Each structure stands twice: as structure tokens, then as C-alpha cells.
């Protein structure tokens, strides 16, 4: 994909339709968002379906043969009764599809299934646009933001039905909010997204299809949160397992019978979309078999509320089957054996040559999508490390980190691990991000041993030991830092050790099983550590700032104790200091800023400080992510943005994928 094109396009979209733009626009125009999405989905290049081609609304609807049979047998009401008054009409990527087929995929363990599936079926209240920069109507057809960004009014699509045929209304949203998220037994701690500004937002039901949410502070990222897929709970089913509604004695007995101890555990087991086949949902496909089964099967939702321009009820594909395999390598061999219809998960950049060579054999085409990968690998300095004061002194020294960055041979790293196709880059958002400035990506990335040596000498590390490693003057011992990595990542760390050895820095790799590694992180024991940087795009990085600032405790390798300090309101952990504090302050301002331009400016400032301080030292970047797509598997865009938060593939609309018979 041409990055330039995307940038321009992304920019247009961003200015037109970001969360904040909608917010601003909605003050002037009551209907900021139309009932049908007027934007073509997911392809920055050729877009065959122009919005004007979309006939609205269709008089006669068609349905899948498997559903027509059920209707004939009297087991299902006719399609017109199943669809809402105004079904969402989805433009097609290539052509009107054919019904039928089982979409075969592979997963590597039970925990993998929900994360893989959710990106295929989930219908959030609002939908990310294809490039993630804006939001499209989905379950909510329109929304208004008022009160300087503190109050949100949402209008639900009327007539959406749960997969068991029961209508979905504002009551379901209210139940999710009041009885699940605000229930102390189910959710002991109020989630951060809901607790915005330190106090839970208040939900109010206006009518059957309208709700209003009020927060104490302007909430610039709320639509982003909604698009992430919250507040989806069928009340009529789940209330049977909720202590407030259900018969206590029966609930207790059922809990015991299931082998669980408390009703909230039982509720949790029932409220699990990908593991409880009985749980109704409004998603594209519904769960047919459980995670623990060898094959996890999902079946079309007969009440799905989207149609194609010809009035065919979506999805086209009948089933999605995830088969358990032994590991990521087997996912690839299955692709080559032609046993996978469409999948990108667990296929890595390094697999591209082999997958490409075997396209014909496997009967697939390899599609390269663009990941929101800021850098593929980075070395992170734990800014709250304090176990050894001498080490801590240098880890926290800006010049030390900059010198470290200059000592890394990025071209070599790219050649070894990315076929030479990754570009040297400092850790920051991707080029296409609205808050990106070129200098963020280029600071201290030159491979310059002399400069690095000079900078380290200037810091007082000018004495060397017998092996040529630098000695810390504070304790007259060799300065030795430990680079913690998760199992399997030592091959990356090994190179870093080699590079910095050339400037006399001793870095030892410690490779550990990943849960041990993770535990060390939350315990603030990391000195250096390595990871990749995904989700690096505005605005979603603001909600996923792990690599930029130590905003919370979990997953933050650049200062977990500082994150902890923020999480606990200053009771535990380490107070932010110096430029970390400055960056965090600006970051908090950005989170609260409802004006889009101002928010971007603030975000840029945070990125500026972060890249200048190199607490996350980026190595190189390639955004190419491979997807294997069978030749008869159509309507998959050739280009797309791949990101966890945007739920790729969902942002390319899997409901309109089809398999040519």
C-alpha cells in the first residue's frame, strides 16, 4: 500500500469524522451520522461500491438457504420479521456474494479462541471506520454529544433482535451498566473506562431505544471505548443467573451443580459469548460449540440485522470453524496444505517468503495488510527501577539512553530478523497517525559508535574493565544491566547485547517463561526489557499508551511503579518525576481534551518528549502483516489497517466475505 495515499486519506477522514469531530458537528447538526453508512468500507484503494450505488431500503429481502429451510419448516419467522425496520445496508467490496460454506481457521489453545473470534463476529455499539480514525453507526444509528463532552445521547437501531428472537432494547444496555458493571459482586472494582474522572458515569433510559450517559469530566475517548465492544448483554437471558432477579435457592443449587462456588462465578461462566452456546447475542455468528472442543464452531445468527445492497441478509458464510493445532507453525502448514480459508492471526512477517512460495500449492493468495506497528522491537528502560541505585542512576539518565540508541545497528537487526525490509525507526506512532511528526521517528537512530562512546565518556563512564566494559565510578564495578525477555525472544536480545558491547556496555539477557516475565514486570523488577509496539496510531494509542508513558501499572515496562502510583492515587509506587511527570501531565490533558485539533497537538507534545527521552528505544519498523486468503474466498479488501483495537478483521466487514462455490 502507498503510505502517502493512506496518510492523505486518513487525514481527510480524521478531519471529517473523528469522535471529537462528530461531537463538534453534532452541536450544529442534530444528525451527525446518517442511518446508513455512506462511507465505503475498508479499502483506501479502489472502492467498487460507491455509496450512491446503495439502494435503500430494499423491498424484498433474501436469506440463506439453510434459514429458508427453517422458515419453511416453521421453526423460524420469515426474514422480513427477523430484520429490523431499517437494516444496515453494507456496501460490498468486490461483488454481491453467494450464501454458504464453512470458513476454516486454526487456533492454538482455548484462550486463543475468544480473541480470534471476537475480531470476526463482534458487533459493537458503534463501529470503527476501516482505518480506525473515525466511527460509523452500527447498533447505535446516531448520537449527540453535549455539555462540553460530558453528556452522550445514543439512539439504538429499532428492531434489532437477539439471536433467539427477543428484541434488543435500551433495557439490555441499562442492565449491562447497572447490574453488571456497577454490581460489586460481579465487578468488584468499577472499570476505569466507566469511572472516568473518578466517579462512575450515570446512565439514564430515555425511551426504549434511547439512552443517555453523563460523566463528571469531558470524555474525549468515550466513542473509542464503545467501539471496543462493551455493554452487550441480553437481559432476558442473563437475569436468570443474576442474584438480583433470579430465585436465590435455585441459583445456588445451579452454581453448586456446575462445580462453582459463588453465583457471580456462575454468572461469569454464562456471560461468555464464545463459550456458552446458549447466550443470545446480536453478533454476526453465534457460538455453536465450546472453547474446549477440538473444533470451535460458530453458526450464522438468523436474526442478524445487516443486508447487502441487493437485500440479501448477511452474513454470506454459514459457519466459522476454528480447529485446535499444536502451534503457530502448524497454522502455517495448514495454510500451505489448503486447509485454511482465510486467516492472518499467528502468521508472522518471517513467514511471508514461505507462504508466498506456496501460494499455488495451497490455492490461496497472500494479502499484505498494514499493521499499526510503531516499531517491531524496542528496548524499554524501566524508569521506576530502584533496586540498585547505581543501575537506576544510569537507566534514568537521558543521555545514557540516547547513547544506547546510537549504539544499535538497526540495519543489521532488520536484515537478521526482517529480511532487511524493516526501516530503522525510533519508537513512536506510525507515519499515518494524525499526531505524527517525522522527527519523532528519526531521533538518535543513526548508527554512530563514536558519538555513543563520547556521550558515555561524558557521563563519567570512561573507565573500562579488563574485558573492555565500562565501570561505574559510583561503586567502581562494571556496569551490568539485565535485559529481561519473554521465552523465545532471546534471539532479539542477543543482538542488542552484541551491539552495545561495542561501546563497552554490558547487557545480560535473561529469558524467562512469559508469565514469570510478566510477573517481574508488575513487581517493578525489570531493568531493560524488550517487546513490540502495536496500536501506535491516533487516537487509539491514547487508550493504549504502554510504550509512550507509564500511565497505568499493567503492561507498562517503562515504569510500572509510576503507573501504580497513578492507579492507587499516590498510595503505592513511585511518584512521577522530571520529564516523565511532564509527559504524563500533557498526556492527562490530552485525554480530557475534547477539541480534536488541540488533542492532537497535546498528543504530539507527549510523543515529542517520549522520543527525545528514548525511554522506549525503537529499533526498526515494518508494518507488513500477511493474510492467507483462499482464491475462492472473496470480498476481502487488498489493503486494510490491521490493529487489535480496531478488531481487524472486523474493520473489513467479515459479514460480507463469501466463498465462491
Amino acid at each position, binding site marked *: 500500500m502507498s503510505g502517502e495515499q493512506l496518510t492523505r486519506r486518513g487525514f481527510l477522514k480524521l478531519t471529517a469524522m473523528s469522535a471529537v469531530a462528530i461531537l463538534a458537528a453534532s452541536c450544529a447538526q442534530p444528525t451527525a451520522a446518517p442511518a446508513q453508512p455512506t462511507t465505503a468500507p475498508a479499502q483506501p484503494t479502489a472502492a467498487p461500491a460507491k455509496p450512491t450505488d446503495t439502494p435503500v431500503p430494499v423491498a424484498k429481502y433474501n436469506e440463506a438457504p439453510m434459514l429458508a429451510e427453517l422458515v419453511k419448516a416453521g421453526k423460524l419467522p420469515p426474514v422480513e420479521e427477523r430484520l429490523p425496520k431499517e437494516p444496515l445496508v453494507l456496501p460490498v467490496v468486490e461483488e454481491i456474494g453467494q450464501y454458504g460454506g464453512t470458513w476454516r481457521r486454526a487456533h492454538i489453545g482455548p484462550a486463543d479462541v475468544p480473541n480470534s473470534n471476537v475480531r470476526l463476529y463482534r458487533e459493537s455499539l458503534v463501529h470503527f471506520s476501516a482505518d480506525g480514525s473515525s466511527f460509523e453507526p452500527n447498533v447505535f444509528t446516531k448520537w449527540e454529544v453535549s455539555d462540553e463532552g460530558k453528556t452522550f445521547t445514543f439512539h439504538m437501531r429499532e428492531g434489532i433482535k437477539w439471536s433467539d428472537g427477543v428484541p434488543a432494547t435500551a433495557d439490555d444496555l441499562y442492565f449491562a451498566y447497572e447490574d453488571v458493571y456497577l454490581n460489586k459482586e460481579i465487578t468488584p472494582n468499577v472499570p476505569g473506562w466507566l469511572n472516568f474522572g473518578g466517579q462512575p458515569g450515570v446512565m439514564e433510559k430515555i425511551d426504549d431505544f434511547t439512552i443517555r450517559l453523563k460523566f463528571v469530566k469531558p470524555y474525549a475517548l468515550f466513542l473509542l471505548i464503545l467501539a471496543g465492544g462493551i455493554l452487550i448483554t441480553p437481559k432476558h437471558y442473563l437475569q436468570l443467573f443474576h442474584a438480583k432477579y433470579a430465585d436465590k435457592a435455585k441459583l445456588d443449587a445451579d452454581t453448586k451443580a456446575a462445580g462453582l462456588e459463588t453465583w457471580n462465578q456462575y454468572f461469569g461462566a454464562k456471560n461468555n459469548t464464545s463459550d456458552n452456546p446458549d447466550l443470545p447475542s446480536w453478533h454476526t455468528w453465534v457460538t455453536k460449540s465450546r472453547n474446549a472442543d477440538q473444533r470451535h464452531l460458530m453458526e450464522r445468527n438468523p436474526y442478524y440485522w445487516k443486508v447487502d445492497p441487493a437485500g440479501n441478509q448477511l452474513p454470506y458464510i454459514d459457519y466459522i470453524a476454528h*480447529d485446535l493445532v499444536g*502451534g503457530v507453525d502448524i497454522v502455517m502448514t495448514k495454510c500451505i496444505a489448503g486447509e485454511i480459508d482465510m486467516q492472518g492471526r499467528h502468521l508472522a512477517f518471517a513467514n511471508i517468503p514461505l507462504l508466498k512460495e506456496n501460494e499455488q500449492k495451497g490455492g490461496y493468495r497472500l494479502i499484505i495488510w498494514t499493521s499499526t506497528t510503531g516499531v517491531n522491537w524496542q528496548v524499554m528502560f524501566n524508569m521506576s527501577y530502584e533496586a540498585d541505585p547505581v543501575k537506576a542512576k544510569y537507566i534514568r539518565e537521558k543521555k545514557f539512553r540516547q547513547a544506547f540508541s546510537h549504539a544499535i545497528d538497526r540495519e543489521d537487526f532488520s536484515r537478521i530478523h526482517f529480511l532487511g525490509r524493516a526501516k530503522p525507526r525510533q519508537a513512536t506512532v506510525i507515519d499515518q497517525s494524525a499526531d505524527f511528526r517525522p522527527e519523532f521517528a528519526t531521533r538518535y537512530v543513526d548508527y554512530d559508535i563514536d558519538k555513543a562512546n563520547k556521550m558515555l565518556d561524558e557521563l563519567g563512564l570512561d573507565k573500562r574493565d579488563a574485558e573492555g566494559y565500562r565501570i561505574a565510578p559510583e561503586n567502581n564495578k562494571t556496569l551490568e544491566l539485565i535485559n529481561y525477555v519473554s521465552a523465545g525472544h532471546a534471539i532479539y536480545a542477543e543482538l542488542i547485547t552484541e551491539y552495545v558491547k561495542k561501546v563497552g556496555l554490558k547487557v545480560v539477557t535473561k529469558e524467562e517463561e512469559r508469565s514469570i516475565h510478566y510477573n517481574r514486570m508488575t513487581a517493578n523488577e525489570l531493568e531493560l526489557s524488550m517487546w513490540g509496539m502495536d496500536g501506535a496510531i491516533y487516537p487509539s494509542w491514547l487508550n493504549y499508551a504502554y510504550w509512550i508513558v507509564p500511565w497505568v501499572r499493567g503492561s507498562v515496562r517503562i515504569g510500572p511503579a509510576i503507573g501504580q502510583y497513578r492507579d492507587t492515587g499516590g498510595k503505592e509506587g513511585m511518584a512521577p518525576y522530571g520529564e516523565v511527570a511532564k509527559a504524563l501531565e500533557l498526556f492527562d490533558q490530552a485525554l480530557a481534551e475534547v477539541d480534536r485539533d488541540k488533542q492532537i497537538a497535546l498528543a504530539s507534545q507527549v510523543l515529542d518528549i517520549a522520543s527525545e527521552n528514548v525511554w522506549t528505544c525503537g529499533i526498526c519498523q515494518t508494518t507488513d502483516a500477511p493474510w492467507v486468503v483462499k482464491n475462492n474466498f472473496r470480498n476481502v479488501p487488498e489493503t486494510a489497517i490491521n490493529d487489535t483495537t480496531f478488531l481487524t478483521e472486523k474493520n473489513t466487514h467479515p459479514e460480507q466475505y463469501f466463498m465462491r462455490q
Partner: protein
Amino acid sequence: MLKYIARRVLLMIPTLFLVSVISFVIIQLPPGDYLTSVVAAMATTGDIMTQDRLDTLKAEYGLDQPVYVQYGKWMWNIVSRGHFGWSWHWNRPVTEMIADRLAITVILSLVTMVFTWVVALPIGVYSATHQYSKLDYLFTSISFVGLATPGFLLALVLIWISVAYFSQNVAGLFSPEFVDAPWSMARIVDMLKHIWVPVVILGTSGTAGLIRTMRGNLLDELHKPYVTTARAKGLEERRLLWKYPVRVAVNPFVSTIGWSLAGLFSGSTIVAVVLGLPTVGPLLLTALLAQDMYMAGSILFIISFLTVIGTLISDILLAWVDPRIRLEGER
């Protein structure tokens, strides 16, 4: 003999108790808990779990209670109701998960075991009776290759060769269309098409070991005076061989054959993982790595139970195969 068996069965109770305590403690030795591993696993694929959700789950799973409370509850449920607890990782009762995989585990292990013995015993006997013959060297060499190649590497190479040259995916036990099909003739045929790969890989090193040991032990026996005596008395060679020296030579296997019961569950786990076999071994490995403690604890408990039973069976067999052995051990 009966008295001996009764005593051993009684002894099993304290042994099992001790074993269960030790395994439960060891499972919890690594830092972190199930939730840490979940978050870490999610992080590797770029998926996110918020701290809020984490706190919620922690309380839900009872991970905030002390170890002995967790152990006590778990043990009590096993003893009183036969409930092995809840697997968080699979979101299912442990018993259900193990039961699901038991059939395939047992089939696979038995087939492997039969394969091993059927191949190894005759070859071992042949190698011993035809020491230093050409075939002896050939069998010896093949078994050494099997012995020296790590099983999972062999598995990967086989998988690649079959995909690259035969466009066949041999990983797993079933073709996609039979994965969740009910048992039928076609499904059995499909399984047989796949099962030879794990059987050969799993069986290779075992077979090699068995051939070597068999050859060695039999050679020991063949030159003993009693063989010469029997031969002198005109006993037919084949009959003589299988009736006496072979019987004595299998003694070392009998000593540990009981453990192959336990091996059914835990043997060759990494190969099973690579091949994606739906057996109990990978279940245990995942449970241990994910610190899914009731699942891990239960499988380990079952394995130790089988080990203890297996040892007993071995001891009884030992006495049966070799009547000179007096198990009571009183002199």
C-alpha cells in the same frame, strides 16, 4: 501374596496424600498465578486485559485465598463428590476435560506401546541371537538414529515433508471434515490415516531403547549354564529361547512397565504439542504453563495414582515372571 497386596494398597493412601500435597505446592512455586499467565499470553498477540477486569477475575477465582485453603477445598471436593475442580483455562470442569481426551490418549498410547513391543522384541531377540551379523548392525544403526533424533524435530521434519511433497497435513489426528464428526467407520479410517505419524514418532525412541536393552539382557542370559543345559537336553531352539532366556531378559521392563500407565498421560508431551494431538499430555503442559492449578493438580494426582498402582502391578508381575523373587522380602 494376598497379604502383601493388601498391605501395599493400604500404604497407597498416605503416599497419595503426600504426593498430592507436594504437587499442589510445587505447582504454585513459580511466581504469579493463572491470571498473570492469561495477561501475559494476551499481551503476546496484542490483546489487552485491563487492570479492572484482572481484579475482578482474581476475586472470582479465589486466588486471594491462602494455598492451604485452596488445597483443602479442592481435596474435599475430590473425596466427597469426585469433583476435581474447575479449569479456568478451559472454563469447564476438570473431570469433563480429562474424560474428553481420555479415549484418544488411551488409544494412541496403547497403539504406540503395541507398536514398540511388536517391533522391538523380535528385533532385540534377533540382534542378540545373531550378534554381529549384518542385520544386527542394520537394526542397531536404525535404532540409534531413532534414539538420537529429538522427537519434536522429527515431527516438524515429517510435517514439512508431507506438506511440501504430498500436500498433506499430517498434524492432528483427523482431517478437518472429521474433527467433530461422530464416530463412524469413515472417521476411524481417517484417524488411521493420521495416527501412524504420532505412533512412529512417539514409538521411535522407545523402540530403539527397547531393542538395545532387550539385546543386552538376552545376551546376558544366552550364555548362562541353564541355557546350555536345556540345549544339551535337546530342547528345540526356538522353544528354548522364548520360554526361558527371553522371559528372564524382560525383567527390567517389567520393573517399570507399570509406569507406562502413568506414561499414557504424560509421555512425550512436547511431540504431542507439536503434532497437536488431543491427548492429556498437552493438557497438562498448558495447565502447568498457564498455572491453571486445579487442572494441573488433578492430572498430576491421577498420574501419581497410576504410578503407584503401576508400581504395584510391576512388583506382582516381577514375581510372576521370575519365580525366584520373593516380594515379602523376609528372610
